């Protein structure tokens, strides 16, 4: 069916739809995070992440919805 998204690139006033954004700078905020605890979470997450990230991301294709 033709449920696929219709994506328009011509935004209002011809404005660039994509604002360049700097990669987030964690700055002082980051220091609040308990890095040790987070590290143990990261190790845990390593064990559950899909093994082939590139293939997984390439295959994660959705049809548009509402």
């Amino acid at each position: 069916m033709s449920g696929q998204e219709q994506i328009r690139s011509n935004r209002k006033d011809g404005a660039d739809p994509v604002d360049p954004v700097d990669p987030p700078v964690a700055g002082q905020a980051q220091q609040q995070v308990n890095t040790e605890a987070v590290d143990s979470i990261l190790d845990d997450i390593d064990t559950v992440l899909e093994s082939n990230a590139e293939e997984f991301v390439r295959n994660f294709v959705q049809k548009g919805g509402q």
Partner: protein
Amino acid sequence: MLSVKRIMGAETEFGISQPGNPYANPMRDSARVVDAYAGPRGLKSSQDFWDFETETPLADARGFLMSTADAHFSQLTHLPQTQPEAQYLANVVLENGARLYVDHAHPEYSSPETLTPRDVVRWDRAGDIVALRSVEALAGTSEPVNLYKNNTDSKGSSYGAHENYLVDRAIDFDDIVAGITPFFVTRQILCGAGRVGIGVHGETPGYQISSRADFFEAEVGLETTLRRPIVNTRDEPHADPSLYRRLHVILGDATLAEPATLVRFGSTSLVLGLIEAGHPPEIALADPLQALWTVSHDLSLSAQLPLADGTSATAIEIQQRYLDACRSAAGPAPDADTAEVLRLWQEFLDALARDPFELADSIDWIAKWALLEQYRRREDLAWDHPKLALIDVQYHDVRPGRGLFHKLEQAGRIRRLTSPEEVEAAVTSPPEDTRAWLRGSVVAKFTEDLVAASWDSLILATGEESLIRVPMKYPLKGTRALVGDVVESSETVTDLLAALGVTRLDQTAHRDDSEV
């Protein structure tokens, strides 16, 4: 006094994928998801099971009807039977009063009607369990399916997590649009789900607050699948249209963190109450769409949004003005549900102004951002690295053993408002204080005789070769308090119908005294 209580509901369209098979038909797999849940539980699943009699997806709140010929195919809520895909349009009404069905190319769980934000959280989360049960049931088949409570594949497609709020019909729709637009544009800082990549295709590396913002292209409109508007005008109350309008909110992200879900629904309900009372803050953005994108792309939360009066304000400042107005309208002694939302909303704004990472335990965009930042630093990855895109998707996996949100929650890093037991109970029990109670109870007790159902009707077979349509136009009727005894004491649907006072066989006549 302003209260957070109103008829509300959450819809979740789940992202769907067959591991290793990007060519799998998502409509077919969505139908398999619905059937995998319904089948073992004896719930009926078919297109015909939903009573479309009262569905009018092309009715516009501005007062006109779009013709079917003018409508894009994807705007129709049901397909003509001649479409080959019609075979995949499974529909189930669950014992908890929710609807589980195939919407376009995604399985969708529409929660039962609830009255408080706490109950929205509970029955929305029950839907995540329903999705999980389907995944588990299909895991043993030759074509397993995974589900993701997210909103985009970052390849140009987006799918929704809609919210529904019944609003006083007497309020002019233009007043709703004017009153709510600045709130909607800035609300994402409280309840965005976060997204790796900027632009509909994620073409610019980076991270942003909302997963949906880049897919919006209009301020007001009827569409939900293309040219998506900040305020959707679909006028389909599923209730007495002389009393209610349903505000169908398509702007939000699916939230997993319960505090974010609570504030998402609670703050919106309060702002609608302000508009109903005629006292929303007087704020107008100079360019709402540009502001929507700006807020989503501004992780510093410091962007000045130009206002129509020539001044400017940050998203946090605009939210604070809405919160102050709600607090003032709620008076000195708000009810407990209202007080909780006001408290949490303020807590969010204070922490966002101080240090957003304090909310890594409460708001998805921040929980995911903290995770990505830590991972990125440890592995020294650029924002366009596939591993970060993988984390972005896998955060939303509904499986507790695989979903990164669930891993964080299990590790005690996410604040939880519900208990697993109350969510489990909500999978099979309806809310008691809305008509969902009658719907869910009839599904549980009289499944065999229930021929079709919708939000505002039940069609029952009485065994006399006749079908009786029970109209349910009033969402505050059909509650346990009002009809609990009747359902309890009825042995058959004939008993039930007699006790409810529904005796006529004519399906089209309208007689309000038979409303239940």
